[in-house]
């Protein structure tokens, strides 16, 4: 098609051929490509290498999953949690982080949150991969913040382990609920409700509010819940084979 800068149907302002038969359209496309291209930053280049997909790396770093506001909110709440934990001796970071991460996960994916969701559904990079990579990003960020916070309290391994495992379960629950219902709010509510039930269950009666993150007996149930919810999320985002 002849270049048509104004999409008016008229021949473009730039001639298609220059002196000596040079294809000016082709030259211009090369110049424009260099001028307009978005050069990925170090984080995107690293993500692209780790994920072996520039598309996934771009999806991870430039779409709603890692909005600055959400990252700042996470840091603010976790920092507040650290301060309270250190001053009271109760692992508030471990108690607060799972529902917070669940909200992050639920809001990181879905038709109501991602404006270009329908377009993304028709692209080769699987929406499930985008979803799981974004989930990983939430865990990764919270794990880093958790390590920093727990290092300050002097109980790195126990707190981080006791925090990440239940967080995995709660986030998977939120992810499954948000994916099945196609509503991020439903995902957040499911995550919060699940965590409240765990924390406030019969432990309250025994005065063990923090047992949900300190009892090793709960590790296997947490992992089972997480695995089940991931399966639900994967199932809900599949394309059925009934298509053919």
């Amino acid at each position, binding site marked *: 098609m002849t270049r*048509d800068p104004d*999409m008016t149907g008229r021949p473009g302002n730039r001639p298609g051929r220059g002196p000596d038969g040079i294809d000016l359209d082709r030259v211009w496309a090369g110049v*424009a490509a260099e001028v307009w291209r978005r050069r990925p930053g170090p984080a995107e280049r690293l993500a692209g290498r780790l994920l072996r997909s520039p598309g996934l790396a771009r999806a991870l770093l430039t779409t709603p999953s890692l909005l600055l506001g959400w990252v700042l909110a996470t840091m603010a709440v976790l920092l507040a949690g650290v301060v309270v934990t250190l001053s009271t001796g109760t692992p508030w970071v471990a108690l607060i982080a799972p529902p917070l991460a669940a909200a992050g996960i639920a809001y990181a994916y879905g038709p109501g949150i991602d*404006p270009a969701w*329908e377009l993304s*559904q028709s692209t080769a990079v699987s929406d499930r991969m985008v979803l799981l990579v974004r989930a990983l990003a939430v865990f990764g960020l919270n794990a880093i913040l958790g390590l920093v916070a727990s290092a300050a309290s002097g109980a790195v391994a126990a707190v981080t382990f006791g925090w990440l495992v239940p967080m995995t379960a709660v986030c998977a629950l939120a992810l499954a609920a948000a994916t099945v219902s196609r509503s991020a709010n439903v995902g957040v509510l499911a995550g919060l409700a699940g965590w409240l039930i765990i924390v406030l269950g019969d432990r309250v009666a025994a005065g063990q509010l923090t047992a949900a993150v300190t009892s090793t007996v709960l590790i296997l149930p947490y992992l089972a819940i997480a695995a089940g919810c991931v399966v639900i999320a994967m199932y809900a985002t599949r394309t059925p084979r009934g298509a053919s």
Partner: protein
Amino acid sequence: MNVEISELTRRFGRTEAVAGVDLRAGAGVFGLLGPNGAGKTSLLRMMATVLPPSSGTLRLLDRDPGSYGPRREIRRRLGYLPQNLGYYPGFTVAEFIEYFALLKDMPTGQVPRAVATAIEHVGLGGKARAKLRTLSGGMLRRVGIAQAIVNQPELLLLDEPTAGLDPEQRVAFRALLREFGQRGTVIVSTHLVEDVAAACSEVTLMNAGKIVFHGTPDDLIAQGEGHGVGDAPLERGYSAVLAAARP
């Protein structure tokens, strides 16, 4: 054949949006016409692999979109403009098109030139670095068209592509349709019969989830001779076929 559809249905609860459609399409530009609620968008979304069919057979680019590997290959070769283009307001025109080029799995080295070519194709060179939130509705539509064509698709699906375009832009857009129709299949869902008359080699008319007419624009015009209502010959054919199809 790039599109082979047999007895395809799609139900939403009790509503049957697409009710047993058969369609085959090779290279060329195909117009999909019909009133609101006829099932055009649902059919297009199934062809875009966004919506799974309830039943029936669907093959795209000689592949089965029901399996992961073939579906991914189809999506690499697919261009899709949805009826409602969702976009990230903070992205520039070039960033948005580049983002979807990457999600379409285009080789990274080819992306910048493909993006520049697509932007020039839709005449947005002067706006390449403008944020999407600053663009008019017609310009956003052109951005949507650019992302659909950035990977030089073999199957191009466009839902109401000329909505918001001014008459001059529509003329240029029809030329673009013809260009892509020479090397692949272009399916255009539209309400504007003049777009069909000017650009399409075949036209399919849907009503209540079924195909009620399939033929050339001239065939549709012939249906309206002495029967239809409308200002243009194709409009008369359109209204005559719909009148005959309604109980």
